[in-house]
């Protein structure tokens, strides 16, 4: 299911090669002594239908901003260089007002905004359309772990920070985080979803507000006690994707990651069968992930 190459896809390393990344990088040339290894400058395109739309929208508005910035900053820099007192510039004190100029620079931004609002609204309408999903998973957030309920099949389990990260993150643990695989981005039990399937997530919180976010899926949404929020994902590539809780939820807010394995439909059905609760027995945790070499081997139901 997940290999090292696949899992690296969730790491934001490819933005470096994109034009937006380069622009951003050049802006910071001042602060970057070395190029090698300085990755993760831009949003990634992700692996779902929505994440690609969101990425395109992000790049569109980024470029619009870059173009406006070049024009506006260009005018400012021109004025600063051209009209210096030290170069003998004489002020044109009659230039105090121009209806024409002011109307123009009120209207042009309006047109630009309308032009950006249209694709944004179209994307939003698609994002909010959770109909026709093929699988529903209820995600419940706790301080500080996630619970996944596969409503159609009864599979249910908790997902907490992997032990290797949990040991290393203690103050004074003496463990170098760089030696821990996927430090803070690994859990004991991965969430598993099938590829090319519209999966609907129902999000709720048990204690305080959390937010479920996997950058490669493009979306984040709050998990709020007493509310059920909806969002959908349709992953187009198999692999392992990692994210984190995105809403401050107390002490261990930084330590409740999300790991999702996107697998083929067949693999998913096998996984589902293997983890279905035996009748009239309390839900058992899923079998140890064959695909999670970095996770400490889960020896039993630690959370449920």
């Amino acid at each position: 299911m997940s290999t090292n190459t696949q899992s690296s896809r969730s790491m934001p390393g490819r933005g470096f090669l994109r034009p937006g990344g380069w622009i951003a990088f050049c802006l910071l040339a001042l602060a970057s002594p070395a190029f090698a290894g300085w990755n993760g400058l831009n949003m990634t395109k992700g692996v779902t239908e929505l994440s690609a739309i969101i990425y395109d929208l992000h790049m569109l508005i980024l470029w619009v901003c870059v173009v406006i910035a070049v024009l506006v900053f260009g005018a400012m820099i021109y004025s600063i260089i051209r009209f210096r007192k030290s170069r003998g510039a004489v002020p044109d004190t009659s230039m105090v007002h121009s209806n024409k100029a002011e109307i123009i620079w009120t209207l042009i931004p309006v047109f630009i905004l309308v032009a950006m609002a249209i694709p944004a609204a179209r994307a939003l309408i698609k994002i909010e359309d959770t109909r026709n999903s093929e699988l529903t998973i209820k995600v419940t957030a706790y301080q500080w772990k996630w619970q996944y309920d596969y409503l159609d099949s009864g599979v249910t389990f908790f997902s907490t920070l992997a032990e290797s990260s949990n040991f290393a993150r203690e103050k004074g643990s003496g463990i170098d985080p760089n030696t821990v695989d996927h430090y803070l981005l690994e859990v004991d039990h991965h969430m598993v979803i099938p590829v090319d399937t519209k999966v609907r997530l129902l999000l709720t919180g048990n204690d305080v507000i959390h937010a479920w976010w996997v950058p490669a899926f493009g979306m984040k949404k709050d998990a709020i006690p007493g509310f059920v929020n909806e969002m959908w994902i349709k992953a187009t590539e198999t692999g392992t994707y990692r994210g984190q809780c995105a809403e401050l939820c107390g002490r261990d807010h930084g330590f409740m990651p999300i790991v999702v394995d996107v697998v083929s439909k067949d693999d998913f059905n096998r996984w589902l069968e293997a983890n279905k609760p035996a009748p009239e027995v309390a839900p058992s945790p899923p079998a140890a992930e064959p695909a999670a070499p970095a996770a400490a081997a889960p020896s039993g139901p630690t959370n449920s």
Partner: protein
Amino acid sequence: MAYSNVETHAHDEKPKGITRWLFTTNHKDIGTLYLSFACIMFFVGGLMALGIRAELWKPGLQIFDPVTFNSLTTNHALVMIFGAVMPAWVGFANWMIPMQIGAPDMALPRMNNYSFWILPFAFMLLLGTWFVPGGAPAGGWTLYPPLSLQSGNNLPMAIFAIHLMGASSIMGAINVIVTIMNMRAPGMSLLKMPLFVWTWLITAYLLIAVMPVLAGAVTMLLTDHFFGTSFFSAAGGGDPVMYQHIFWFFGHPEVYILILPAFGIISEILPTFSRKPLFGYESMVYATASIAFLSFIVWAHHMFTVGMPLAGELFFMLSTMLIAVPTGVKVFNWTATMYRGSLSFETPMLFAIAFLFLFTIGGFSGLMLAIVPADFQYHDTYFVVAHFHYVLVPGSIFAIMAGVYYWLPKWTGHRYNESLGKVHFWLSAIFVNVLFFPQHFLGLAGMPRRIPDYSTQFTDWNMVSTIGAFGFGLSQILFVIVIWRCVRGGEKAPARAWEGAHGLEWELPSPAPYHTWETAPDTATITRGAEH
């Protein structure tokens, strides 16, 4: 000269000792108190920021446990917003508004004293939470329930502190409005007022409109926690999201409270050092008013991920995007002010130009954040942190610094050391970008905000950011040195300290006497001053 009668100087006797400051009703003394308080809080909040950045130097927990880290982020925000930036603006209002509109003092001088002296007590309460069992508030400065209700003894202390700050702000705002409405010199019509006065007038209305809303929201937290109400508890029939709506109905106008006076100061400084009147004075006033109006109908863009109906998301996206129009008008007018001027680059002008560039970058990221689908990625990441620090630090704080350098000669009667001022500027301008620009990358790469520890791929840019933080923080010591030396002595400043300066304050001697405009300026003086 309009202002050189001997009589005034006979009145220039100042009370001596500590009682001068405790009991003062003089707008200049109170302005000084506010600005000094803001400066102290800037360093308190700054130390917290350095604590945050030190912990984020590399992955793993080195210095703080996670709860202390959360307390640092929470208190850094509260101290910087309510302790540093807002009091600094009230300090400027006190010093400058009476002098700029030809009034002898603020309209309500005793309330003025009271509104300042509430503040030290408010901050003793807030900072005192660090020493109570359970520690300081750690639920974020927005105090979202249910998380904020999990705190212990710090909650009522923080809430009462917010009540006191709100009362202080409301009194300050009432004072500003009454002063501007009633105490303008004859002939100083509304559209002759300097833009700093205009922006503060609008800011004051925002303050009066929204500070009670914040007070109400936190009071509901208090009763939820101690008196068994369920305003924000779903289990009791309440709604945790309602808190966010109420909070941001305060919170969004609040961000304009932090930036509108900055617009005013920049609109004073750019014309002075361009030796050319402000371009489009009236459209600047209208743009400020439109921004203030729009600030009331965009609040939910802070909470796009709570799961709003599609119609709500569309409305708040479009209204938020609209703010770019009046803000754009301002930036274009400022650029047009410099165009065909005769520019010189003293420290206030340098800070104003840096404001122009860097605030605009903050505006661009703000526009990106308004696009709801993209915001689903940006929300609660370091991209947001980068955005609001760009509008607050090289925005509000740079404008405060520009204003301090601009009016220091008027306040102290001395010129500050221009070379040191420029060194301070260049260090600040460089390090502020080293500090905050990489945070855009971190956010886009997927680093959430408010985490004490992070995955290893975020290490490099966090290190850069931390270097910038310490560089920026240490540079501010220079700011205090420049001010201190200027207060103690230096080259004598003339009444009109800057060649291109217009406005009634420059008709007064430097330093401004203890009592000014006891006789209102004549029309000729006002007309000369109102050449914006």
